[in-house]
């Protein structure tokens, strides 16, 4: 154990560091939620493209492929994937456009930033419900 110049052992110094593991006391402001959602939807979209590009390749290649995809899309799994993909894409675009606007120096204050964050989450939920109702 190395000695600290003050005589306190390093082990004790480490122990005295403040820790905050009380997760319920950490608050997540709207801007933090939009940020993590943008990240989650970005990664999710990358894997959703497996289905989207697969289905697209299948559907434009032959009439039989088109029919097969249409059939899949009418099943519950196809609908869940389609609605999920469109929902993730619409959130990622909303968040991305907010990024582009903030890059130009707008909505960078605490209040306007939180308001725009709440706005895109609201628009996203409405869009997802509309798409869900239309496709189901």
């Amino acid at each position: 154990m190395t000695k600290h110049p003050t005589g306190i052992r390093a082990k004790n110094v480490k122990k005295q560091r403040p820790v905050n593991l009380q997760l319920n006391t950490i608050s997540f402001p709207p801007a933090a939620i939009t940020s993590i959602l943008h990240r989650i939807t970005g990664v999710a979209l990358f894997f959703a493209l497996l289905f989207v590009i697969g289905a697209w390749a299948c559907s434009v290649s032959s009439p039989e492929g088109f029919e097969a995809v249409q059939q899949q899309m009418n099943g519950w799994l196809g609908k869940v994937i389609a609605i999920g993909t469109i929902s993730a894409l619409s959130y990622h675009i909303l968040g991305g456009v907010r990024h582009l606007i903030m890059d130009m120096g707008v909505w960078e204050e605490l209040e306007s930033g939180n308001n725009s964050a709440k706005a895109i989450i609201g628009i996203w939920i409405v869009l997802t419900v509309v798409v869900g109702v239309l496709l189901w």
Partner: protein
Amino acid sequence: MVTSQASLKRDGVQDFVTIRATAIIMTAFSLFMLWYFISTPTVTYEGWHALFSHLGMKVFTFATLLSIMLHVRIGLWQVLTDYVKAAGLRAAVQFVLNLIAFVYVAVGLFVLWGI
């Protein structure tokens, strides 16, 4: 800074611009497809096939697929550097993800070629 643009070295400004430029192309494609599905009462094989037969649509589709590859090359790297600290593992995961992104483009190219 012509030399830095021409070299293979990446920097943050280039990544920033690439993410945004590709974002605009992908958004345009998404809005176009949205408009197509809204304005077409019944999507038939004939109509769907004809849409992607246009040279303009082939170029637009291919540009979008390329944009996706460039966008996720940077985007997924950003995510991985935050969560995967072991350099070897990160390089391996990144390689696999970039390979998948490349396959997306390759599949698109072959399909568009055949239409």
